[in-house]
């Protein structure tokens, strides 16, 4: 019977090719536009470290001005970055499983000083725990140890792309590179690693690529470098030397910890609160106690990584999908009612209401599937366009199997909803009326 309905549907579709195309086109456009914006939204709100995102926390300490909160919203929130003295105090704790404070900084890099021209390379200066805490995959070698952190050893971890460019993809562990006229020994090469969003530093582009160069945190401190990105200060202080800058109330460092269970988390929370109270005695931390540990997804939400624009596009494209569906309902109704005399004959010859519904449902389904497939193609084109318009969306705006499945399901559900009323109408016609006019 189903095969027979498919044949009927096919005949009906071919009888009115223009109307059918219009219906498929309407569903396809609706699916194409809404899937483009949904995919963007979905990728932007994805979890960059699913294996342990609830165990890795961004630390916020409320060192800000007693007169006003850093963030106005939600009754005030602490700054997203730490001061240097606080970051160092936290690093001294052995409560977290892993812990790393960090900053972004550019270096002039070249293989050696003979001949090759320096080029700018963005680096992350951090602690050796960074790699284990964030499950960074290594191609060769590994990160550095605590001693290298303490001594500010001139060691470096480079990314796969940089390793390809400088060393032709060979195992470069033990080789050296020149950064800002100092020699650094390579200890590890990272395999492809691209957390989306780049959760650990949302001050330097939430969707930019991970750095291709990592050095111990104390290296730029020794070189008296400031971070690239935000450095925010509230307190009028005389800052006439780098040492004074380091001791100032300026916030400029990202700080992450791994805490594996609730107990460890509670212990670390009381440690940072204790630190704050201790500092309060010295005249710092004058705001009400508000020190936070945000896990990765809480952090992305707090920092509003998914922009209002993206949410707005989803809302508008959903309205667009509804318009397309209304359109399809109208066209389908027109088409089915047009066929009423035929259905009248079928009903008179003994077809039940159910048979009529089934017959038309098959046709609706076919249109839905076709619309979904064409819509997927449109979404694919839409995402290519989006990628070319936003320079940092290259790895963001891509369809994955989940989104492909979503698109097809959405199209079928959309077509079924659109077909519901027309099918009901055609199954409830009075055969007698239509037979009379024949």
């Amino acid at each position, binding site marked *: 019977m189903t095969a027979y309905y498919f044949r009927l549907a096919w005949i009906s579709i071919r009888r009115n090719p223009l*109307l059918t195309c219009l219906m498929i086109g309407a569903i396809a456009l609706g699916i194409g536009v809404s899937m483009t914006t949904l995919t963007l939204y979905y990728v932007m709100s994805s979890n960059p470290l699913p294996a342990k995102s609830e165990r890795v926390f961004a630390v916020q300490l409320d060192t800000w001005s007693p007169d006003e909160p850093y963030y106005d919203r939600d009754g005030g929130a602490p700054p997203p970055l730490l001061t240097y003295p606080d970051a160092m105090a936290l690093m001294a704790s052995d409560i977290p499983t892993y812990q790393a404070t960090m900053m972004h900084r550019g270096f*002039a890099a070249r293989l050696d000083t003979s001949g090759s021209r320096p080029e*700018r390379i963005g680096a992350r200066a951090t602690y050796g725990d960074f790699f284990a805490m964030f499950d960074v995959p290594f191609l060769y070698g590994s990160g550095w140890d605590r001693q290298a952190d303490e001594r500010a050893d001139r060691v470096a971890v480079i990314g796969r792309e940089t390793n390809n460019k400088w060393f032709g993809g060979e195992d470069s562990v033990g080789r050296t590179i020149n950064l800002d006229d*100092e020699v650094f020994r390579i200890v590890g090469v990272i395999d492809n690693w691209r957390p989306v969003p780049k959760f650990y530093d949302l001050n330097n582009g939430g969707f930019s690529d991970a750095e291709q160069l990592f050095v111990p945190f104390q290296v730029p401190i020794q070189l008296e470098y400031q971070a690239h990105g935000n450095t925010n200060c509230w307190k009028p202080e005389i800052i006439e030397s780098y040492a004074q800058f380091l001791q100032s109330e300026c916030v400029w460092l990202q700080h992450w910890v791994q805490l594996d269970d609730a107990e460890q988390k509670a212990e670390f929370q009381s440690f940072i609160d204790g630190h704050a109270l201790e500092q309060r005695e010295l005249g710092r931390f004058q705001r009400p106690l508000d020190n936070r540990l945000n896990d990765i997804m809480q952090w992305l939400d707090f920092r509003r990584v998914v922009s*209002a624009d993206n949410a707005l596009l989803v809302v508008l494209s959903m309205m667009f999908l509804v*318009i397309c569906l209304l359109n399809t309902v109208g066209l389908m109704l*027109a088409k089915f009612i047009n066929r009423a005399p035929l259905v009248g004959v079928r009903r008179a010859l003994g077809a039940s209401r159910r048979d009529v519904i089934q017959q038309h449902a098959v046709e609706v389904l076919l249109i839905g599937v076709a619309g979904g497939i064409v819509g997927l193609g449109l979404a694919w084109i839409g995402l290519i366009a*989006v990628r070319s*318009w936003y320079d940092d969306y290259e790895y963001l705006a891509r369809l994955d199997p989940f989104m492909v499945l979503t698109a097809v399901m959405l199209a079928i559900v959309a077509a079924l909803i659109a077909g519901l009323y027309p099918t009901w109408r055609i199954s409830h016609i009075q055969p007698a009326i239509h037979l009379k006019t024949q």
Partner: protein
Amino acid sequence: MEFRPILSTLLRNRTGALLIALQIALTMAVVINSVFIILDRAETMRQPLGIDEEALIVAHVISVGGDVDVRSVTEQDIRVLEAIDGVERVAKISTMPLSNSGSSSTYHLSEEPRSPTVGVAYYEGDMNVLETLGLEITRGRWFRDEEIIYDPDEGAVPAVTILSDSAAKEFFGDEDPLGRFIYTGTGRGIEVIGTMRMLSRPWYNWGNFYDTALMPFVEGNYQYVIRVDPARREALVPVIEQALVDIDPDRLVARTRTHLETIANTYARDIAMNRMLSIVMLLVVLITSLGIIGLASFSVAQRRRQIGTRRAIGARRYHILRYFLVENWLITSGGIALGLVLSFVVNHFLVSEYNMPKLDAIFLPLVAVGLWFIGLLATLGPARNAATIDPAIATRNV
């Protein structure tokens, strides 16, 4: 006119009309809100920067290692660059309007730390900044050569500054700013020696766009801004970069590009957003017009015999044409009435959820007229088909 029969026919055949009206209402809500956001962003992007951005190229040069004499290196670089054919003037500056990176600070009105403050974004640069950027001094004077400090000590505070007119007004209201002082948080005063007509901030998303100040400091890693003949702008970028490399190949020369490119990068998200909204808007209008055409054709096909009968009993062609156009006009008007309400509901939601700007009522009549026009245009084809139906059809069986 035959409003009543049309209306009663419509009421008896509600579904199709309702579907069209709903589509038009939703289309109106989408179009109005999109147009509004697009125009709002376009206006943001049209804000003047106060500089001759179409004539500017920016190059970043960083010396690697070792101590360099910032003044002599800067002067040598500027000399070489200004010798290039097509280059008019070269300055060294800390950052550029709309480059999305820079510094801002709050300055006090007196030495008293509790005195009122004004936040300004500040630029540091040399003597050539005035001519290179194309700034205009409105009061007082430009810096003197001896006021420019090369490689200042960490934490040093300049002795003099030039404020934008907007910042001067923030500080001193309508009083004469010349000779007055603005103070750092630690109570050090900076004398205001002049004001400039307009200089925008390095970013556009927070603070007053035009509250800026110029400080006479030059650091080694500042960027070169190069004023060129706008007609040869693109061609000069590689020439300038090569010239800088040739001076000293051991330096880092990076991100040499026209300032227009930098501005386009800064606005990339807004440009992309506007493109996406425009496409959605066009598709919405397209789909809705196709829907109107489809349903109108269907309703004509369904009423072939009635039309034939009307024609047979004396209705002229234009009566038939008018019938369908009036019918569509009624449906469209219903949709527009519903759309007005819906537009405000949607906008209210966008304002409260996503901080979008509040709808300006001036767009409503424009979009409504547009939709009426589109509705009529879409019905015209099917209505003309209806008008050509032969009266003889009424006497024939289907």
